[in-house]
């Protein structure tokens, strides 16, 4: 059988490209790397200004829990208006009833 046991696959070599301790901005054209202070529960993207709440899976693995809603809503409103969207961004109650 022509199986080379030692040979590493592309997937295996890509392990080297993993970066720890950082998160990436969720704004599609930004996707800047944000390096939060260890254990921080908030981070602001230095490139595009989006603000996020953070969660730490383990001490080297932060993740974005969600946006800071009030900031997010302001940015969304402005962008929507700027893109010529309907002037009335349909207001939705803060969830629930």
């Amino acid at each position, binding site marked *: 059988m022509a199986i080379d046991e030692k040979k590493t*696959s*592309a*997937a295996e070599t890509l392990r080297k*490209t993993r970066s720890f301790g950082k998160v990436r901005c969720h704004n599609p054209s930004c996707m800047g790397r944000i390096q939060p202070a260890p254990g921080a529960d908030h981070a602001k993207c230095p490139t595009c200004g989006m603000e996020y709440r953070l969660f730490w899976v383990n001490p080297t693995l932060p993740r974005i829990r969600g946006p800071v809603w009030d900031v997010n809503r302001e940015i969304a409103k402005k962008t929507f208006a700027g893109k010529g969207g309907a002037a009335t961004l*349909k207001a939705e109650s803060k969830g629930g009833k």
Partner: protein
Amino acid sequence: MALDRKIAFIDLTNGEIQIKPIPISMRKKYLGGRGLDAYLLYNYSKKGVDPLSPDNPLIVSGGILTATCASATARTHVMAKSPLTGLLGSTNMGGFFAPELAWAGFHHLVIKGKAEKPVYLYIHNGNIEIRDAGKLWGKTTTETQWAIREELGDDEIKSLVIGPAGENLVRFANVMTGIKNSGGRTGMGCVMGSKNLKAIAARGTMDIRIAHAQEAFEYNKRFIDQITSAKVNQTQGALGTPFIWGATNCWGGLRTRNFQFNQLEYADDIEPERLDEIATETVGPHHMTGCFACQVHCRGQYRIPSGPYAGKYDEGPEYTSQGAFGAEPGCTSAVTVLTGNHLVNQFGMDNLETGSMIAWAMELYEAGILTEKETDGLDLRFGNDEALLEMVERICYRKGWLGDTLADGGIPAAEKIGKNAFDYLIQVKGMNNLHSDERATPALALNVATSSRGSDHLRSRPAIDLYHLPEDVLRRIYSNPIPYKGPLSSEHTSYEGKPWMVYWQENCYMAVDCLGICKYHTTFLGATLPNFEDWPKVIYYNTGLEFTSEEIWTIAERCNMIERMFNLREGLARNDLKKGDTLNHRYFDEPCRRGAPDVIGLSIDRGKFNKMLDEFYEYKGLDKNGKPKPATLKRLGLENEPSRSL
């Protein structure tokens, strides 16, 4: 040997059982699992068969690697013609059933006919027995499983069961095993119910000899290290599949209120971190559990913290439940998500379809198309948690006009409701979508439009498209094993190169389903996970069969093509809104209104979408109408199907 597992043809009408070996030639063409299921369905069903008739074959299987010394070989696959879509019915679940079936001597079961009275199958070390299920009928999914164990006096029995929803022929009823492992999509539980088949119980202690045990053993360790070192799997192992919520709800990829919005604002109570806190409080710090031989352990455990079901133990919730009982009906309460999840698990009903159907009804109610007359007085507005949970029960037991109507699935319900109800139904091929909003992501939109079982994310979704990986990394992944020279884009809002990515993923997921391993062990959510290059080793060490990566790719193409042939035979047509490869008008006409700044204002461009579809067909070897070219069938060795050679 894994390869000496058998196939059984079971006729419930006359009780006849035929047990046959699976020839190596079939393994070389279809591997096993979903691929071989697709061959069996195409070959052993007649064109236009009524999905609820005795002639619709129900096929249950494990993959070629099931229960071998490979990682996460836990997946059970079930196939039949779908009573929900009238096209391919296909569903895949984790748990412990398929390995037990393999230790009991079988890889595939083909079940036809209809029993006179409720029955269940008991499969034990090469024997199959049809037993009376009179006492089991009416029981919930877990009650049924524990009752079977008690009746047969064996706690190690693993069963595949239906709940009340399957008995009541809800068109999107689950088949389930364990507490929450569900084959949810396309209504396979409904097919089981139509056959009066309440459960399939398996127990086995038959050897599966590993072809090259020492190598398989060490390679398995290397494979597992590769899996568990991925950040995505570490996150998943801590928070379960709900972890996806963080990113999707952040950038605006979450289908909210039946596709009106693409983000559920201020939903902190159903964020995965909050659900994790509840699990920690109610179960303890170690509340993650896993399927057979899997080190990702992505399944949560919890007890409902309050409300009418307080204290009930269940597993999950998955990302789909956050959508079904959160985003889609516009509810933001963790208790509602956890309760809804518990109800559908007990009833044996697809959470995803249930949530989508109710959200659709909610929009119809708010639009005045449904009134209190149809809802029997229920105030079915978005964000009404009690109404949501009440509807779950009404659908399962077909209570009231609306419960009975929704239980028939989207398209029949739209016809019954009338007016323009169909326009609001976010479906592809008659099946509702996961609560993901693909208006900003053309690759994902193409994936749901072309998925062989109707709108679905587990057939060809290039999820890593969302990670903005450097182009050279993308090219390394997507050029394996077939070199790809065309354009590629790291941008997930772009249309460049996406058809190839979708095509590649379609083959990747098919191969995984044929092997019987979990999609979290391949290029789905993580870019550094094993795929075509790694599989020849794991197959060879475990079974002794030799394949090259290219051969596995071709097998996947072949199996996907036979699924396509089945769908075409049953009426698939490219632009048919009900049976085609196209999307609800909202994808094209209503731009995203929320989420990250660069997502707002985006929708799918009809022209570009059609170009993507043309390109996708080209890769698959289909003509412009989506039908296979004769040369493609010849290349894949399918020109003589149906061949009925098993």
